[in-house]
């Protein structure tokens, strides 16, 4: 009890203490202080804690003090690839350079790197020093073979490898790894080659592409390349609207009959066209006419 009252009085003294020293401590009440029995135990442990900064000896006894930044412990001949092995945002505690970035205040300098969001926003190439690239090349070398010395001109390459396959890879940002434009592959064949063999190969490839693999059955709606109206929210909505418009009863038979109607078929065609081909004058007109016919407007 006595120790607790002593601690609170010390804490309050500590706050005033800081204020006198002119340290800009805003809202000390927001700090995570623990006013429980636990704090009494930790206070006895922290007495030997080294005093960091000029915040006074009594303040924040129950908080772990932040450590030194890594830049204080960096030798000059260190291995930089260990600090930035991959592409990572700028970390001011890991980069030992006095970088400043930003528009300066009047009669001031650009803001320092501590807490600077501008330095984090920009892409950095700290992981691509010449040494790091050399290391990458050394790691890749065992998997590479020498280019055959006989194939030194373009004409020789064309003669020995007449079939050329062009595929494009796209680097685009999104949740999916796949880019729909990357699915298009160009195959170029020059006619001086064995024509029958080339035709045979193309036929085999064509038939292979039609085979269904086991993992293809896991395809979800999001993976579909084209929009299909069956079992889509559009079909459900229009069915429920039409059922409500009809005075006769519910049931599967009514739904089947509604689906069979030509207006519903037209609506289905117009929605599929809009989604697959995108918006254009003619597709919008088609959609408008289909909706008008369906809802008897």
């Amino acid at each position, binding site marked *: 009890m006595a120790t607790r009252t002593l601690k609170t009085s010390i804490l309050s003294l500590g706050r005033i203490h800081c204020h006198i020293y002119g340290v800009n401590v805003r809202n000390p009440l927001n700090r995570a202080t623990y006013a429980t029995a636990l704090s009494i135990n930790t206070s006895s442990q922290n007495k030997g804690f080294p005093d960091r900064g000029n915040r006074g000896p009594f303040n924040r006894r129950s908080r772990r003090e932040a450590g030194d930044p890594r830049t204080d412990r960096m030798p000059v001949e260190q291995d930089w690839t260990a600090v930035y092995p991959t592409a990572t945002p700028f970390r001011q505690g890991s980069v030992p350079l006095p970088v400043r970035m930003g528009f300066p205040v009047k009669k001031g300098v650009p803001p320092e790197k501590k807490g600077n969001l501008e330095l984090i*926003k920009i892409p950095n190439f700290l992981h691509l020093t010449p040494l790091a690239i050399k290391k990458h090349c050394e790691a890749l070398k065992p998997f590479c073979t020498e280019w055959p010395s006989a194939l030194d001109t373009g004409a020789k390459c064309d003669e020995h490898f007449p079939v050329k396959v062009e595929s494009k890879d796209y680097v685009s940002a999104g949740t999916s790894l796949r880019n729909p434009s990357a699915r298009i592959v160009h195959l170029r064949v020059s006619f001086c080659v064995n024509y029958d063999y080339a035709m045979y190969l193309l036929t085999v490839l064509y038939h292979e592409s039609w085979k269904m693999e086991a993992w293809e059955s896991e395809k979800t709606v999001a993976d579909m390349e084209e929009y299909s109206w069956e079992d889509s929210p559009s079909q459900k909505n229009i069915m429920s609207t039409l059922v409500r418009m009809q005075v006769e009863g519910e049931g599967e038979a009514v739904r089947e009959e509604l689906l069979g109607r030509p207006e519903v078929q037209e609506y289905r065609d117009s929605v599929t066209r809009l989604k697959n081909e995108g918006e254009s004058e003619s597709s919008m007109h088609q959609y408008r006419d289909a909706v008008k016919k369906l809802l008897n407007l």
Partner: protein
Amino acid sequence: MPASLSCQSVISVRNIVGTSIYNNSGTRTRYVTAACCKNRAARIRVGKGDRPLTYEQALHPHHIGHRKGWLSQHTSNLQGEGGASDRTVEEVFVRCFLFGTFHNCLANEIVIKRRGNMLAVCTLMLQKLPPQKLYFLIGYTETLLSHFYKCPVKLEVQTLEDKAVYKYL
């Protein structure tokens, strides 16, 4: 607004009266030019001088591209690329989610970077939470967001003692 309208109705009555009884030099006219309101987007107005602002808050939106960078960039805004609206909605959700999870701990806006299909969320935080709680919340955020978006989400956190003040307004 209502006061001026009633004022105008009074004036109109007076106009009618004025034309018949008084001469026209004593009447007031109505201004019919279009209203041009001041821009209030994302700007904190000048005050007493005791409000600390970060660099992000102090510079107005028309400085983006000149004195400020972009908080997130993605390829969907390029010619011929799609999915811009999806990326925008994802980013808004991520910002709101982090603002709520790390309540009162964020020192500045969140920067979102995309590397392939990985979402790297870079945050600057204040040292308000004990490290164990912070680590738990980081893991929780990463797991939940990865499950939502079906892509790897990485949270890169840097901590500060206090917010970096740029100027006082």
